[in-house]
């Protein structure tokens, strides 16, 4: 009796499942004309604000194009990736296999994006990355269907090596989280700094997203370097600058960082961040018409100030729109589409830029100083910086 009951239970369960799965796709097919865009971004957790900014920027770009891309309407499928690399493959598969999206857009966290890159390569789905800077995505894992509108972790940190050397610093200590974005930033900085003749006294790491900085700050105090270079973002960046100031080091050992240290966090950081110098591909006070128009439109629509993440999302929308317009909205000839995307000159609020051969922006990196609640651009740290795309076998 027991075994029969179990048997029936099992068959019933699996039967229902099969029936449901057989019906579902038929319903979806009926709307084939719309372009299916899958947004895989963090909407909860430490990077939630970034996920929202990117989405807002993307949708603004589409709206400015009459709500269409290449003449087609858009149907959005959204997944909250929670910045969790462990769930990334499942989440990406849900969009690609179950929802059958034409374009995958995402994400913020470099670990998550690598899973997306794998799924995109395996399924030949177009992937546009509006933030995650993992070098490999447009490096060793580059592919014709993968594009990025943000940066590689290498790009914003590299010019800081020169900036700090020119300021006379020769012995530097670094600190960051032990994850892809942190390590690639530090490595890039180290490359530039040591090439000019500087030396790194100690490279320190703490596990992501730990924010107990006290032992490390104490260690910095005892090493007494000329300066400190860090990579932190979001809540961690806020805490670090505050802890650094609370330990009395702010005025004694100058602190520098890649721009994420002070982007989107200044209000929370207050006095502890004033005067900090950072490098990034965007900043406040960029004087070009597109930037002014973009910031006005964004502020009006969403009620908050635009930031670098919004710009990257906006550019992703511009890229998709430009590429699809060139092939009249058709996804039939993928090669033609990818070629069109490669040639798009993105009229971005950060300044117009073009794609490198590995599908990453070639862009200016600005030097900014924190003044009040703004990251004021005080110069260009490096003009038209192209990521070396190490290991990329495309378009040699």
């Amino acid at each position, binding site marked *: 009796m027991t075994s029969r009951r179990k048997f029936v239970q099992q068959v019933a369960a699996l039967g229902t499942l099969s029936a449901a799965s057989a019906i*579902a796709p038929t319903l979806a097919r009926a709307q084939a004309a719309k372009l299916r865009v899958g947004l895989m971004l963090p909407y909860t957790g430490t990077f939630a604000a970034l996920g929202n900014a990117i989405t807002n920027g993307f949708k603004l770009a589409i709206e400015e194009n009459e709500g269409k891309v290449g003449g087609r309407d858009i149907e959005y499928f959204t997944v909250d990736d929670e910045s969790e690399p462990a769930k990334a493959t499942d989440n990406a598969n849900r969009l690609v296999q179950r929802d059958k999206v034409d374009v995958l857009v995402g994400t913020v966290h470099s670990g998550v994006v690598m899973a997306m890159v794998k799924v995109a390569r395996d399924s030949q789905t177009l992937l546009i990355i509006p933030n995650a800077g993992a070098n490999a995505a447009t490096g060793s894992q580059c592919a014709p269907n993968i594009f990025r509108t943000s940066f590689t972790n290498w790009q914003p940190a590299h010019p800081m090596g020169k900036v700090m050397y020119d300021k006379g610093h020769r012995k530097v200590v670094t600190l960051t989280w032990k994850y892809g974005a942190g390590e690639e930033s530090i490595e890039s900085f180290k490359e530039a700094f040591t090439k000019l003749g500087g030396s790194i006294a100690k490279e320190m790491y703490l596990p992501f997203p730990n924010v107990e900085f006290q032992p490390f700050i104490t260690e910095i105090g005892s090493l007494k370097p000329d300066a400190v270079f860090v990579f932190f973002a979001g809540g961690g960046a806020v805490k670090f600058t505050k802890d650094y100031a609370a330990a009395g080091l702010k005025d004694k050992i100058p602190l520098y960082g890649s721009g994420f240290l002070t982007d989107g966090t200044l209000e929370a950081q207050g006095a502890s961040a004033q005067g900090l110098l950072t490098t990034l591909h965007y900043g406040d006070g960029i004087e070009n018409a597109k930037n002014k128009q973009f910031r006005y439109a964004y502020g009006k629509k969403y009620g908050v100030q635009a930031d670098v993440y919004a710009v990257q999302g906006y550019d992703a929308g511009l890229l998709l729109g430009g590429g699809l317009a060139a092939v009249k909205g058709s996804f039939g000839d993928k090669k033609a589409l990818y070629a069109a995307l490669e040639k798009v000159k993105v009229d971005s609020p950060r300044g117009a830029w073009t794609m490198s051969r590995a599908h990453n922006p070639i862009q200016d990196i600005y030097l900014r100083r924190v003044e009040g609640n703004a990251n004021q651009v005080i110069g260009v740290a490096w003009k038209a910086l192209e990521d070396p795309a190490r290991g990329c076998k495309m378009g040699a």
Partner: protein
Amino acid sequence: MRTRTLVLSLLAGVAVLAFFPALAEKFYVQLVTKIMILSIFALSLDLLVGYSGLVSLGHAAYFGVAAYTLALAAPASDPANFWLTLPLSLAASAFTALVIGALVVRTSGVYFIMVTLAFAQMVYYFFHDTRVAGGSDGMYIDTRPSIGIAAVDLADDLHFYYMVLALLAGVFVLLALILRSPFGRALQGIKVNEQRMRALGFATRRYKLAAFVLAGTLAGLAGYLAAAKEGYVNPELMAWHQSGVVLMMLILGGMGTLLGAVIGTFSYVLLQEWFSTLTKHWLLLMGGFIIVTVLLFPQGLAGLPRTLAARSRSGLREKNGDA
């Protein structure tokens, strides 16, 4: 009687699962593949918890070690050799289980639970904090391992599905046989009363260690398959949350009945898929469900008939005025 139940269920289950891909969408084939892999993981834990009475809260460590071994052994862009990498991964899990097991079988009761948890965390932090395998970002495996037989291409989801099904059936049969053997009987005896077994002359510590290593190796098999399927490994594979989840699957399905492990895994994952369509806070539902299950149905789904029968029997007794 038990054997007949097991054999019937096994045949029925294999038949249904073999037929399933003909009806279902690619996404669901992948989902069931994942469930089958997790079933192997749950079965391995059932050997420890359900039959030997060793509550390990760190079983995911061996799952993860095998997964990472494949990731580290796989070449950069060519498919790995299945016949080389599988034994290697199993050996890695077995070795880890041996080392940790040797230390933990010296403890018992609640200490055992806590130290298995703590050692699993050690393995987790080793992979999470060092760059040996990508740290918290994880590592990916470019292509699925190749079996070397022309007709079988593991990169094809359907072929992979059937291979996993075959392995699941194999593990099920293997465990059923082991549990009927003298070794298996001794383990069950240890669960009931370890002191008595020792008095009877059994070197209980060695039996426990053997069970621990065997369970760890089978968990490694599941880990290898998981890594091969996803093409991506990450320290969260061995987080204690994962160990807790597989325990939940066991209690949901019913411990100490091999079938319960499989039923529990299917139920848990399907419940998860269902709950997540209801709300983004589906873990709340899952947590509540677990609490209710533990309080009211500790025998799980497989033991549901027994629980209900016992309830109605005691209800009748009360009605008839018996003690």
